[in-house]
């Protein structure tokens, strides 16, 4: 007689921090910490964008993007519970693939379009060449 197969708990569903035991206090603290970090990053981003004299002007968009990436990481960790633990390997690999595609799409579009803009004949030159 074969013993019932015991399955090792080596996987976690995304969004679910407690596979076996439900600990409401820990869950609430996790969501609360995430909310705190998210509010902090949001407030900093809004202050940075609306107060023009605070930092060197051209650095503001870069700083805003860094803050946004940080806040998205906070959401992934504390709200969606995507962590780097071994039980989350499949979820992290899927996320990594998604990030690569998003990066290629956005950076590729911006690079190609700005390159085309630079190499395009100015409007005045186009009108002259038609004559």
């Amino acid at each position, binding site marked *: 007689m074969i013993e019932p197969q015991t399955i090792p708990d080596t996987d976690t*569903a*995304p*969004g679910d921090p407690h596979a076996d035991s439900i600990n409401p206090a820990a869950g609430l603290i996790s969501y609360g910490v995430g909310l705190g970090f998210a*509010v902090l990053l949001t407030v900093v*981003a809004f202050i940075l964008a609306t107060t023009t004299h605070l930092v060197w002007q051209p650095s503001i968009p870069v700083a*805003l993007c860094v803050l*946004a990436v940080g806040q998205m990481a906070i959401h992934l960790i504390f709200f969606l519970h995507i962590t780097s633990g071994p039980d989350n390997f499949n979820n992290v690999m899927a996320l990594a693939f998604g990030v690569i595609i*998003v990066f290629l799409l956005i950076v590729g579009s*911006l690079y190609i379009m700005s390159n085309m803009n630079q190499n395009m004949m100015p409007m005045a030159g186009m009108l002259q060449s038609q004559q």
Partner: protein
Amino acid sequence: MSSTTVPHGDPYHLGLFAGDHSPTAEHGVHDLLSKRIVTGYGFWIFLLSDIVMFSAFFASFAVLRDATAGGPSGDQIFDITDTALETALLLLSSFTCGVAFIGAQLKRDTWYFGAMALTFLLGVGFLLLESREFAGLVSQGYGPTRSAFLSSFFTLVGCHGIHVTLGLLWLLTMMAQVWAKGYRPDIMRRLLCFSLFWHTLDIIWVALFTVVYLIGVAT
């Protein structure tokens, strides 16, 4: 029985062929556990594909940001106070959604339904603010047909708004299902998918208010 005659129907622990085995209590728990993991993983992949779709809209917005065709640019039409309010509403609704999920895990009715109702109200508030902004822009003559910048703006923000609307319908469905059927394992899996969906909408909004509104106002 010898080990060769027993079919090993579930080598990857997907929870399939659960009926083939002799039902032991422990096995039943593990079947449910693995089914939940597979469901969550599949929905996670759908969400990532949704994010990839949004990234295409983000890319077109970033490319067309300066193509205003003589119309208004971002800093002339955006009301940053409204954006801050919308951000606060959506962030809080993401928090209450997580609280509702814990309430459902504990099978506490007041906790679950209260937090879900709060999530719904916060989401409705977000949608009202956004539709007011859209209506204001269109009535000023700055509709999506005015310039390429406004076309990409309405497409990107409107697509997120449609997602929030569908999410609110799903939220009401989940409240009705738990009310009618209780905290069954299959209902809990749907609830897990819903909470993932709602949190992902908030992640997209973080990218959205940064790229569209904050950078639009700052530059």
